[in-house]
């Protein structure tokens, strides 16, 4: 990897706006959590991932990582839950890694990248929970979480696909 990376003022401004948007979406989501309908730890719509995925396609891997990390840190500061931060950090790291890899591979559409990211997020969180709780009991949640991730991942993919098409004429880089 060559370290040369041009960071223009425009890019920094865009990253800031997208981070704020992602943070806003994750706070908004906390007002109507999906876990009220499906009461399992870790169940969520993942609205903020719309922004991260959009950034991955329009700005690239590193800005997307920066936006995700900013949202993750500030989001858990707002929620004030240190253990939730650990879970979302590990889930998010797995998710970002998979999404960046799938995007690089160049065979998958926005949908595939989104699905892979959503599933990886759940697997990362379950792995973190299994380690923290020192119990394999949480693995019992994985089948349900993975099934839900198919739905939420496809939905995120659809929204980002529409957004990217709408923004195709903009030169965001």
């Amino acid at each position, binding site marked *: 990897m060559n370290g040369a990376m041009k960071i223009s003022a425009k890019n920094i401004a865009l990253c800031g706006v997208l981070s704020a948007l992602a943070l806003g979406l994750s706070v908004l989501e906390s007002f109507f*959590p999906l*876990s*009220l309908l499906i*009461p*399992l*730890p*870790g169940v969520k719509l993942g609205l903020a991932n719309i922004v991260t995925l959009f950034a991955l*396609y329009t700005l*690239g*891997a590193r800005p997307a990582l920066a936006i995700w990390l900013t949202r993750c840190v500030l989001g858990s500061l707002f*929620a004030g*839950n240190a*253990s*939730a931060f650990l*879970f979302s950090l590990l889930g998010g790291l797995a998710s970002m890694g998979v999404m960046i890899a*799938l*995007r*690089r591979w*160049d*065979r*998958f*559409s*926005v*949908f*595939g990248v989104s*699905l*892979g990211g959503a*599933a990886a997020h759940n*697997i990362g969180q379950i792995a973190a*929970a299994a380690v*923290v*709780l*020192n*119990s*394999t*009991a*949480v*693995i*019992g*949640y*994985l*089948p*349900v979480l*993975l*099934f839900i*991730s*198919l739905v939420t991942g496809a939905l995120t*993919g659809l929204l980002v*696909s529409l957004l*990217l*098409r709408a923004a*195709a004429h903009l030169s965001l*880089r």
Partner: protein
Amino acid sequence: MPTRSSPIKYRPTVWDALIAAAIIALGLLAAVLFYTKNARGGSAIVTVSVAGEVAERAALSQFDGDHVYTGNGYTLTVSAHDGEIFVSHSDCGGQDCVHTGAISRIGQSIVCLPAQIVIRLESASPGDADVIVG
């Protein structure tokens, strides 16, 4: 970086279906691995662990009543009666453990992530044997 030049694929591809299939397969595998081990039968043992340490272990039939556990600064009230066990009160933010409702079968569990408390119903048979013969 090569990502800059690769065109965006807006529509689902066959490869996406492969990812979806892989996720379904993984889910089924986890379900089979986890739930076939915990077949019904025998009397259940309640194990409550706090931050990975077993705090209480008792037969479900002898667990009736309210039990209070604290973990990571949160307090949970676990209630049991008629072979069912549930979290009746928790002062955590998410309330996932309360919403999980009652569990009664071996293999089921209630997890409270903020309090790091796991309530698990296990088989009373010793060890982790799948089949006991004789």
